[in-house]
């Protein structure tokens, strides 16, 4: 009965239904849609506050998204532990610097992968806050509410993502 707890991978449809049902409960219990990227904006505010003091709180963006630990910040923190539990139960947990698909095209250098991940992360964080959400907040929670802003964003995430992935692997990585 409990084999699924130890499975390395479950059907994407079971996982999708699970995430859909999870979203019912976040609305019902916490009155909040699932989302992840504001947690990173709050974290950047916390870091800036540590480095530059209280005047950081006066920045218009941090007045809008206060640099505090909130529901969504804890959600993102929880994801780390949920994934850890799942990967330990299935034996899928592994320390890894360079993913296999990356290594097959760009080699095994951890430094190159680190630099590119850092650059990609900057672009992702900047773009997520520009668009007002990420693959969770717009891509799942916003589209399921049929929000116009989220459908437009989600489609643009994939247009930008597919074009860049093809450029990266089929032009640069050829």
């Amino acid at each position, binding site marked *: 009965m409990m084999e699924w707890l130890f499975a390395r991978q479950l059907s994407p449809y079971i*996982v999708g239904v699970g995430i859909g049902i999870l979203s019912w409960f976040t609305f019902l219990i916490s009155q*909040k849609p699932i989302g992840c990227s504001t947690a990173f904006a709050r974290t950047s505010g916390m870091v800036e506050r540590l480095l530059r003091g209280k005047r950081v709180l006066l920045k218009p963006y941090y007045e809008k998204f206060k640099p505090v630990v909130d529901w969504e910040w804890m959600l993102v923190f929880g994801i780390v532990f949920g994934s850890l539990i799942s990967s330990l139960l299935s034996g899928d947990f592994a320390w890894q610097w360079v993913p296999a698909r990356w290594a097959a095209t760009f080699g095994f250098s951890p430094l190159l992968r680190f630099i590119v991940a850092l650059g990609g992360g900057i672009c992702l964080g900047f773009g997520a806050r520009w668009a007002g959400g990420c693959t969770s907040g717009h891509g799942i929670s*916003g589209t399921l509410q049929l929000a116009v802003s989220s459908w437009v964003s989600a489609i643009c995430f994939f247009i930008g993502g597919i074009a860049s992935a093809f450029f990266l692997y089929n032009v640069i990585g050829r």
Partner: protein
Amino acid sequence: MANAQETGTKGSTLIAGFIFGIIFGFLLQKGGVTKYDVIIGQLLLTDFTVLKIMLTAVITGMIGIYAMKGFGWVRLQPKPGSFGTNVAGGLIFGVGFAVLGYCPGTIAGAVGNGYLDGLFGGITGIVLGAGLFAAAYPRLQKGILSKGDWGDVTLPRLLKVNDWIVVVPVAVVLYLILRLIESSGH
């Protein structure tokens, strides 16, 4: 205390967020989307796991949320947006999505899975990127972000029809897309 409630920083709220996060992270890992290879496979159109999970979650979530809205149990919280916000931001996000190979939610799952490129490169980058946006925000807000504003409108409100006139066809179309992906052998 009113302030703590506004920003959602009460103890019970935080614990609820943490528990929801554990379940979300567990599901993401079991779905395989905490892995770079699966996400980049989706963007290279060789592995459709990401889309299958997202579309199934949207169908399930949408029907449940709109039913609960009908019962008066929940209130929708659609995000406001504009052409300048969602199109430009979405495309920039897409570039980062492909270059990093994780997104802000799945990267937390990647960390739990042991992936160090996500922990050291990706998380640092996303926090830096969000900080850069905070610095650019006052200028962007008056310019591009306000271009083509459409507010927090939803499709049923935009079309001025009953919710289910949109919910049912959208669910059917998304289901057909999933069928199409399956029949194409992905």
